[in-house]
């Protein structure tokens, strides 16, 4: 990584109107949710939609657009005496810092002010990790697909997949195997979708696990333990690292 590039990418992004707008929208929504809802757990449940759907969408689409718009600039950087790997990682770091900072100001600070609890902290950590993961996925799609509109299209489809289609398939699986004890398998399957992992973690924290009945108990048994938590965090980090790693590997050989 190259600190100079990170520094310049961040200073470029912090002046980006979309990022500023994104931060403001997050901030407005979180404040209005927390001010209208006096029960913090209910507030956090309302924040869920924001964190689980809006944040990934903005992160993946904005990062894709930014990467495509920076294609020439990235090419210019490549023509400079710089390692390709460090260029790509630096750009990721810049994007990731900007998106997580926007999230932290927009959601993290209001949550810590109005709902400083284990569930609030889980919500913020979940959102931060989701920001990283979806920036990382964007780097992968942007490096693999040369055409801007196709790339942004794929980014949106991927978001749809994680936010919607995956759950639909999960539901279908549930119906098919309803007669079997599938709860433990479901934990494994849910690991394939970072949005689901975050959602379940937060729901368990706001004590909706009682409503999740037997499923909730099984999930609590897993996520409630240190080992389970460790595995979950590792899986989330893998979700950040793997797309980035594939993207960097491809970028090293890419023709610009």
């Amino acid at each position: 990584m190259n600190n100079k590039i990170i520094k310049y990418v961040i200073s470029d992004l912090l002046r980006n109107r979309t990022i500023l707008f994104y931060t403001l929208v997050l901030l407005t929504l979180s404040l209005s949710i927390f001010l209208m809802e006096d029960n913090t757990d209910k507030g956090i449940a309302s924040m869920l939609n924001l964190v689980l759907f809006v944040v990934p969408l903005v992160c993946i689409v904005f990062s894709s657009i930014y990467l495509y718009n920076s294609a020439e600039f990235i090419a210019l950087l490549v023509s400079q005496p710089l390692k390709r790997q460090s260029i790509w990682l630096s750009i990721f770091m810049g994007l990731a810092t900007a998106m997580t900072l926007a999230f932290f100001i927009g959601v993290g600070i209001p949550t810590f002010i109005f709902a400083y609890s284990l569930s609030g902290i889980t919500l913020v950590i979940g959102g931060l990790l989701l920001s990283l993961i979806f920036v990382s996925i964007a780097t992968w799609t942007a490096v693999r697909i040369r055409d801007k509109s196709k790339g942004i299209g794929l980014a949106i489809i991927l978001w749809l997949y994680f936010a919607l289609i995956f759950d639909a398939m999960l539901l279908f699986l549930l119906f098919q195997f309803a007669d079997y004890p599938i709860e433990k398998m479901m934990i494994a399957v849910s690991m394939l979708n970072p949005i689901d992992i975050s959602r379940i973690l937060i729901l368990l924290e706001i004590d909706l696990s009682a409503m999740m009945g037997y499923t909730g108990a099984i999930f609590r048994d897993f996520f409630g333990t240190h080992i389970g938590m460790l595995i979950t965090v590792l899986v989330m980090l893998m979700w950040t690292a793997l797309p980035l790693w594939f993207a960097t590997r491809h970028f090293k050989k890419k023709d610009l």
Partner: protein
Amino acid sequence: MIKIEKLSKHFGKLQVLKDIDLSLTPGQCISLIGPNGSGKTTLIKTILGMVVPSSGNIYVEGKNINREWAYRSDIGYMPQKGEYPENMSIGQVLDMMIDIRKTPSHLLDNELYEKFEIETMLDKRMRTLSGGTRQKVSACLAFMFNPKVLILDEPTAGLDPVATEILKEKIIREKEKNKLILITSHVLSDLDDLVSQIIYMQDGELRFHKSLAELKADTGTDKLSRAIAHVMGYKTMFTKEVIHEQ
């Protein structure tokens, strides 16, 4: 200075460079010409490491550039279309490049910076700049670090006549400093008085690499543009006889 051996590049099924062999020496201003899609830009990009060749090798000062990156500090590159992070100011872009190159300030070549009067627009954001101004910034950056090799992709496109003249004079001066200058350009007349060698490419193949004098003699014209037109017009005639020109 730069030696290219059996360089080939495929984009999928399309072969854009076919077994290119070239040897470029310092003190020359080489014009790389050819119709659209002939592989000029790809060739430049392989030298810069932006495109990874399918086969063949490139040596810069005797070193194979495969998987290398440090050699690029010897190269100044002015892209065809200079795009920079749109929210950065010109000053920041310059600072960033200086940061990246790590060249001490007393070794910087600020001639173009001064002549293009970039100092007066340091605070302007890149997204507000016209194409011409961006070209000026790109040119300024290419020359700033005193590189041994200058690669200029369509340098005069978008520049006003005054700026073009400044750039041409700068190129001439650098050539005299025994640097290697590689230029692609469509607008041939701009370059007539600079060029010392011509590389002509077509369909990914190197058609010839000649000195200007040779070319003029071969085609029987005394103007570069006419010579080129001649080459393009009668390219079938040349295909056979040109092959071993160096």
